[in-house]
């Protein structure tokens, strides 16, 4: 009987070694363990044996069965592995072929991007967003801002009028009046919006453009605070390496008034065509709010102080992205818009 078992083992091992296909494994299984299988047959003979012999044979058969089953499993796994390998070979791709684009995303207008950058920088300094109408009262746009009736900036050649009391706002500064009339100081507002000037369209002028007004009212604000705020915000927009300088200027609604220059982002301050060789670029107008404006809106200028600045989003966009002609910003040519 032992010989018989040995024979079965050897024969099965030979078959396994020679086996080519996974289905032959099933046949072998049947041949050994099936109802008419060789090992099954041997087990059937066990009834005729003595107790001890039966136990011995049982153990031997079981051992052989486990041994052969393990060998067959191993073989099966090998077949599977080989089949998978074959499939992988067949499914191999040309990885250098172009990828399939996802659903095409659109693009924000570069001015929207600039606006958000500036806005977020100012929000980080505690500013709240506020706005006012594009068509404004003459009073808010000029008179209450300390632009008396005879001021040359009120000339028809600069301002689009609707009638003698109503106009297209020429700057976002009337939002200051609305802020003063609607909120109790102290406050910090940033006020974005479109503004309008009677400027013929050319490479650097547009009758419609976008400004952001910054306006802070508090006690004890000073020129150093204005400088510090602007310096921080310009660096947030243009990068830490940009330098700023504040130089005297004039606006009717600020006193003292100033203009902020930043070191040229194109040449880094060495002087180039963009900065006209000076190394500096004029970026915004600002100043300590004129006491008349505060008084016009019911605040005591001895008690309250304020500063304001107005930055042209179009201009900052042009500088930031190196756009040479402001007209691109209103033509909406897809080849332009898809660059940002």
């Amino acid at each position, binding site marked *: 009987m032992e010989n018989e078992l040995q024979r079965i083992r050897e024969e099965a091992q030979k078959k396994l070694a020679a086996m080519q296909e996974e289905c032959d494994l099933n046949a072998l299984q049947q041949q050994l363990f099936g109802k008419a299988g060789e090992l099954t047959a041997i087990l059937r003979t066990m009834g005729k044996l003595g107790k001890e012999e039966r136990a011995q044979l049982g153990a031997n058969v079981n051992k052989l069965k486990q041994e052969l089953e393990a060998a067959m499993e191993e073989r099966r796994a090998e077949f599977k592995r080989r089949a998978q390998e074959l499939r992988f070979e067949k499914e191999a791709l040309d990885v250098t072929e172009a990828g399939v684009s996802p659903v095409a995303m659109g693009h924000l207008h570069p001015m929207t991007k600039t606006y958000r950058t500036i806005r977020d920088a100012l929000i980080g300094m505690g500013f709240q967003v506020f706005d006012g109408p594009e068509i404004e009262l003459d009073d808010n746009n000029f008179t209450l801002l300390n632009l008396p009736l005879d001021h040359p900036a009120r000339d028809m050649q600069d301002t689009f009028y609707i009638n003698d009391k109503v106009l297209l706002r020429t700057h976002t500064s009337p939002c200051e009046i609305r802020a003063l009339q609607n909120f109790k100081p102290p406050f910090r507002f940033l006020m974005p919006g*479109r503004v309008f000037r009677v400027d013929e369209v050319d490479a650097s002028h547009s009758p419609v453009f976008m400004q952001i007004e910054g306006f802070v009212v508090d006690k004890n604000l000073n020129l150093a605070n204005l400088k510090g705020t602007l310096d921080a915000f310009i660096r947030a927009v243009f990068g830490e390496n940009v330098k*700023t300088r504040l130089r005297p200027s004039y606006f009717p609604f600020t006193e003292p008034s100033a203009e902020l220059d930043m070191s040229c982002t194109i040449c880094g301050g060495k002087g180039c065509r963009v900065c006209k060789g000076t190394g500096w670029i004029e970026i915004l107008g600002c100043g300590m709010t004129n006491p008349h404006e505060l008084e016009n809106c019911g605040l005591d200028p001895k008690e309250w102080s304020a500063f304001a600045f107005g930055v042209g989003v179009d201009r900052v966009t042009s500088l930031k992205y190196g756009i040479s002609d402001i007209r691109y910003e209103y033509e909406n040519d897809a080849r332009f818009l898809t660059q940002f």
Partner: protein
Amino acid sequence: MRLPKSWLQDYVDFNVTDEEFIERMMWRGFELEGVEKELKDVSGVITGKILTMEKHPNADKLTVCQVDLGGKTAQILTNAKNVFVGAIVPVAYAGAKIGNHDFTVANIRGVESQGMFCSGGEFNLSDVEYPGAEVDGILILRADTPLGIPIEKAIDRDDVIFDFSVLPNRPDCNSIIGLVREAAAALGQKMKTPVIPHIEGEGDVNDLVKVTVENGELCPRYTGRAAVDLKIGPSPAWMQRRLKEMGMRPISNIVDITNYVLVEYGHPTHAFDLACIRDGHIIVRNAQEGEKVVTLDKKERIMDKDMLLISDPQGGVGVAGVMGGLNSEITENTKAVFFESAAFKASNIRHTARKLHHVTDAAARFIKGVEPVNAYLALERCIELVSELNAGKIVGGTVDVCAADLTDREIDVDVSHVNRMLNTSLSGEKMAELLSTIEVPATAKGNDLHVVIPHFRTDIESGIEADADIAEEVGRIYGFDNIPAVLMNGDTFQGGMARAFQAEDKVKDVLVACGCLEMYNYNFTGPNALKALAFAAGDVRNDAVKLLNPFGEDQSLMRTTLYMGMLDSAARNIRRKTGYGRFMEVGNVHFDLGGELLPREEKKIGLAFFGEGESFYTLKGVVETLLARFGVKGAKYQRNDVDCFQPGRRADVLVKGEKLGELGQVHPNVLAAWDISVPVYMAELSFEKLVELSVDTPTFQPLPKFPVVSRDLAIVVPEESESAHWIELIETALVDVIVEKGRLFDVYRGPAVGLGKKSLAITFNFRAEDHTLTDEEIKKAFETVIRVLGENGAPLRQ
């Protein structure tokens, strides 16, 4: 304001480089507009001496000259008659440039010429400035002129002219004297301030001229003096040179004096021919409506009653502040002159100059603002120059009709307030010292700074702005650059933005994610564009706000919808074949509703789709996505009759019965007006309504606990019926079973369903809230749906 360096040097030592000077002026608020060489159009012209002259072998009129250019010899051809051997002349040697002309080596009839000789005219010289400059021919230079030196050195025209922009609050610096005052302070020097002597003269001008000022408000001061026995002739070389440097043209001594004083003191004066003032009586009065005056430029000016006229008893002799009359012009025969130096009200002169479309140099200065003390200084300076130029005999006395207060204003400034504004800690004494450098006298006493505002500083206020005005002056001189940058301190502020601003970001972000490019279009439109959009009578979009002073008809209205601008840009993209056809814009439109002072402003979201792959449904899909992202549920799309869209392909977007917006395929007639020949699909939604309807924070809905069963069916319905109707019917067919997620997935038209019919294939789900549906329930539910559809005229497709 132009500032010739040589003129500046009359008053200060120019002890720094040009660059340093320019930078220092910038720190004081005077930005450089440009720097010019005195002979700005000439470069590379040098002096040369003619060594030999020979006739040109092939040209009778030409002479071949060998010229010593100081070290090298050049051959120059000329046809000038006045040159001679030994003459020193300006040579535009090859490489030189005059105006737009570049000089090169030329071959003239077989003989080479290495340049050309120049005439005095090419350097804008008069005989007075350089003897022989106006001769017909070549400028013969003085015999002692060195050879090979630049012509600008040889004729002493090598000055540099700075041009600084003067801020509107500093009209005093639109003068040499005023600008030099600032320049001297910038250079750290005391200006050698000129003192104008009072020249007594003979007789009394008041015997020759009587002046009546009828409107003292428009003419706060009128001063005048006279000179007789005039010798009209050219002004001297130094004056001609300076006028040219300032961009003016010398005319004659008396006229040049007024122009010289105009730039020197910044105050316009006028010279009348005294003989032409009838009755010797000048009346400053408002013109009569329609009164006519012929001005110096020989143009007839028609005045109105708001304009100020300088007249004599018989009529106008000048338009106040703008231009003198032709009838009293200074001519070569003038024997006696009356100089007028007056202060006119800026706003009135602005009104006049604008109405007459004639903003002269004088008017521009009056508009910027003049002051009465300077008016008198300018007058005295005119008289001094008449005397200096020996142009006539000075008449004694002065006409001075003055309603203005001429005393200097005095203010008391709070030193600590100034320091608070600047974040400085300067003593009152230090402030006084700084102010003294710009000739603003001040004395400190504790916290009080007593300032005497000089007459020329009209910008410094005596009222509530005084502290700020002085702070600006102190800060400017102390140097803004010396003030540190300090972040605000004190209370913490909550930065951020309200819901609407956040929503605008989100609208744009969602639409960008849907593939849209963002447009920025102008707000202007015109009646033609509005008419082309063919909004029905009563549509608020016809009520556009009109501009009083537009660029032109087609930009005379404020847009009432984003459609016009978007169509403009769509047309541009199609014309340029940019290959992109999916755009959005978020912008304001305005409606003139009457009644209110300000028009109504509304923010709109616009969409414009065109080109390959775009359809009504791709547009609608983006609208649906946008609404979904804002949590707006239950939007209905209902056919409308907005005429800018093609009938049958247009719909309102309704939410809770209210119109949120509209969409459609643009009507071919509209497209034709924009010259567009491909289909364009547009939508416009109300931004405000979207924000109002949006749900920022949705409440969690528990997930269904029991499975859904999906069923499809195809029904045959009339062609004109809408799928939403049938889906709604399906979804409401049962009460005990939930029917939901109805969706059309196929439409069939053809013989199988018959003419005028279509077959709709619809899928939907059954489910129950509290149990798994049984087969029996499902079967019954499906049958109910079919029955309801059948009863409503939608049989199952066989």
